[in-house]
């Protein structure tokens, strides 16, 4: 684009302003956008539309379970809100806690890799690989592995019971703590990498200037390092919170959860695949989307990162 603009400026030197305007509307630009636009129409708009339509469907009178017809049954929304209110709020509480823990763990990791290891490129590269390494194993397998580790008769629990650190009837899998642990663990790389990208660019001379201006290292961290890495914190928390709120693996009974830890993702899954209550599942999905959209918009507005640099 830049080259094109330059060229057309050179060839139509008589009306350079006109050249710029026509460049904006160039058919080539639209053509280049086409694959992306088609992709979005096909894989985002169509399913969304189908989801919206499904969410208003009503059961066919006298039909089998799973038979629905097009209608405008907006009560679907109030019904699911009433029925699944605990799951919805649980989802956001779990996701919020997991995001906070992932930030507390991910930020120091990102700081060490992005700032402390700058002088040692080899160690920096190695540490980055270690952050990404879990991705080489499937998400499901890793979560199952944790289930094994935390199992009531597993090595960790039996050792702790043997040492009488915990009572003999204690258990961990199936508790909210286990679900939040799983969520935190699985999303740490998504938190760490964006923060690392921000910290890696951090100009350490600002920190020196802070010290020179009588700021204690802790003050330098709060007043300078954190604000300057805010874009990374913002994307890291979003990349953790949004998928964590909709996660249905960690909270599932087959993994780290139990019937008491079901999140909205599990409910949607159950309604779609087991209960075959498609309108309820669609309504819940849309409610989840809307809730996340509202929360995220408020969060981004509040953090005011657009003012940064």
């Amino acid at each position, binding site marked *: 684009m830049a080259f094109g603009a330059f060229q057309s400026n050179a060839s139509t030197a008589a009306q350079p302003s006109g050249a710029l305007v026509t460049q904006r509307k160039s058919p080539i630009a639209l053509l280049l956008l086409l694959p992306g636009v088609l992709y979005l129409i096909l894989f985002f708009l169509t399913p969304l539309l189908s989801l919206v339509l499904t969410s208003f469907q009503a059961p066919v009178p006298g039909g089998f379970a799973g038979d629905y017809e097009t209608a405008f049954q907006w009560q679907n929304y109030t019904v699911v809100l009433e029925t699944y209110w605990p799951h919805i709020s649980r989802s956001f509480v779990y996701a919020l806690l997991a995001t906070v823990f992932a930030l507390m763990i991910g930020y120091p990791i990102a700081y060490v890799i992005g700032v402390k290891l700058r002088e040692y490129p080899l160690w920096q590269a190695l540490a980055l690989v270690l952050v990404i390494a879990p991705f080489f194993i499937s998400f499901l397998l890793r979560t199952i592995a944790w289930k094994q580790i935390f199992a009531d008769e597993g090595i960790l629990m039996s050792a702790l019971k043997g040492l009488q650190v915990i009572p003999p009837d204690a258990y961990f899998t199936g508790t909210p703590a286990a679900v939040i642990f799983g969520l935190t663990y699985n999303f740490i790389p998504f938190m760490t990498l964006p923060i690392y990208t921000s910290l890696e660019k951090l100009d350490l001379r600002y920190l020196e200037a802070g010290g020179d201006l009588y700021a204690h290292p802790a003050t330098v961290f709060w*007043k300078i390092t954190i604000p300057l890495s805010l874009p990374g914190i913002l994307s890291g928390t979003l990349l953790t919170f949004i998928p964590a709120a909709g996660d249905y693996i960690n909270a599932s009974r087959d993994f780290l959860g139990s019937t008491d830890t079901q999140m909205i993702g599990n409910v949607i899954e159950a309604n779609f695949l087991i209960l075959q209550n498609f309108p309820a599942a669609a309504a819940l999905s849309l409610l989840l989307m809307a809730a996340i959209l509202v929360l995220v918009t408020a969060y981004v507005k509040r953090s005011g990162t657009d003012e940064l640099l």
Partner: protein
Amino acid sequence: MLEASAPVRGFADAGADLSLVNVSKRFPGFTAVDDLSLEIPAGSFFALLGPSGCGKTTTLRLVAGLEEPTAGSILIGGKDVTLAKSHQRPVNTVFQSYALFPHMSIMENVAFGLRRRRIDNADTLAREALDLVELAHLAHRKPSQLSGGQQQRVALARAVVNRPALLLLDEPLGALDLKLRRQMQLELKEIQSEVGLTFLHVTHDQEEAMTMADTVAVMNQGRIEQMGAPVELYELPKTAFVATFLGQSNLFTGKVGNSTSDTMTISAAGVGITVPLSRAHVHRGTVTVGIRPEKVALHRHKPADGNRTVLGPGRVLDASFSGVSTQYLVAVPGYADVTVFSQNTSESDSARNGDEVYVSWSPDHAFGLSDHPVGDSGKFAADTDTGSLAVAERERLEAELEES
């Protein structure tokens, strides 16, 4: 409030003395500062002058507390601060990169140091400091919305507002264009006399150092070659490095021939070059004598005055006109090329390339050095910075590879 019990904590009434005692700073592979001792009296404007990689910025960082010395101690106002962290020192720095916090407004930047020390009327003081640098109208802007010169003034205000005992300036004018630099030099000097702080200014610009500082220390390879008032350094340089880094010099090396009670003459290629003993650091053996180009006169015919040192005849290799003066390069057989600065006054002779000329000067203007020039490029110190050594080594290896 807090300040009632702690009366404006840390505000210096006046500048403080700075002493460096046998300070060394070694990095793996090279020594940046080598056994440096320095005494800067309170209220003075001191310049550390040297080429890049000479250790001047490291010295400044040691004083600011951004580096720890390998050996030696640093005293500010008689108090040993060698082990103090940067935020504990009564020192502020104007960084070469300015390092203005990009996420804060100009006002917040300037008030930052005051707020850290919980000074009551931080806003008023910050506004006054911005007034001093005539930028009060931009107080609400972000640093990225300011020009380089304005950012430089904000950096200065941010440091000066804290009334530090010692203000460190790390080539703060380097990024400015010539006109703005001159203007800022004047402003800096004005602020210094107004607030009475001790200024330590690090620069590679010899003109800047000489116009601004009371005392200049010329630094080379981690050591101070010579220290003194600018006039003294210029008129009587002690080493070949100072003679060529601070302005230009024509240098002649020869054995001391006959000497009288107050002069000595070295013989270089059969001609005697006389220098007063009081202006020479070494009085016997092989001595290098220098003369500044503007002290050398150009003649069409051999001058008759017996008191002057005369070389020639030589040939003009190059004449470059620069307005107020013309710089000639004259090849004199048996000597190195002689540089002559000739003022373009109406009575002076002008010569053209290839003209046969004589050069002469009064022996009173000559000076004797304590060492000899190294190699041909005496103007630049050998670049022994680890980075450049690595680059040189790499270039050498690449050249070898290409050959084979």
